[in-house]
């Protein structure tokens, strides 16, 4: 079975480290030939809004926007909680970064159960 890691992020602008570290891990995973999927729920969906990650930088780490760009260039995908997007009045058609996909619970279940390991931040 191919190795796959899933990272669930539930923090965004409120907690830069919790938003940043999973992208560090996911980038390292993809660079190591391990599949990586990032899932955003609750306040975590904020960082997938275009431009919003530009202001997020955790000390000791690259800026979040750079990490998100590295992740995209390595083919990483971001799954975003549909109800969380809707409740924050985020327009999924125009406001989200291009490698984002709005999904619901069943898709998260499929991704999580097919992962070798899953981590929640």
């Amino acid at each position: 079975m191919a190795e796959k890691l899933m990272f669930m992020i539930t923090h965004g602008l409120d907690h830069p480290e919790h938003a940043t570290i999973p992208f560090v891990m996911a980038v390292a995973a993809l660079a190591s030939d391990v599949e990586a999927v990032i899932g955003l729920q609750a306040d975590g969906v904020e960082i997938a809004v275009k431009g919003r990650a530009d202001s997020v930088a955790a000390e000791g780490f690259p800026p979040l926007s750079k990490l998100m760009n590295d992740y995209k260039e390595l083919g990483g995908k971001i799954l975003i909680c549909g109800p969380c997007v809707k409740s924050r009045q985020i327009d999924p058609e125009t406001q989200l970064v291009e490698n984002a996909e709005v999904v619901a619970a069943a898709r998260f279940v499929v991704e999580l159960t097919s992962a070798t390991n899953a981590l929640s931040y």
Partner: protein
Amino acid sequence: MCAMDVAELGTLTAAEVIDARGAACPGPLLEARKGMGKVAIGDVIEVWSSDPVTKTDIGAWAGKVGHEFLGVIEDDGYDRVFIRRGK
């Protein structure tokens, strides 16, 4: 575990030297990955990093993806990390 000591590493000529000084994790790792794509199997790349965790991180990465971590020379404020392309 390093495959070569410092004296042996000093005799190597890297096919690609990557200056990743100033970059934080995972920057040096990504630069190493990019650099490895530019050299032939069996060639050596040398990554310069001022991040002290790079030497262990690249060692772990190399073992994971099938390259050979050769060792590290500590220079003035940065590490010179040597890896041989294995695949």
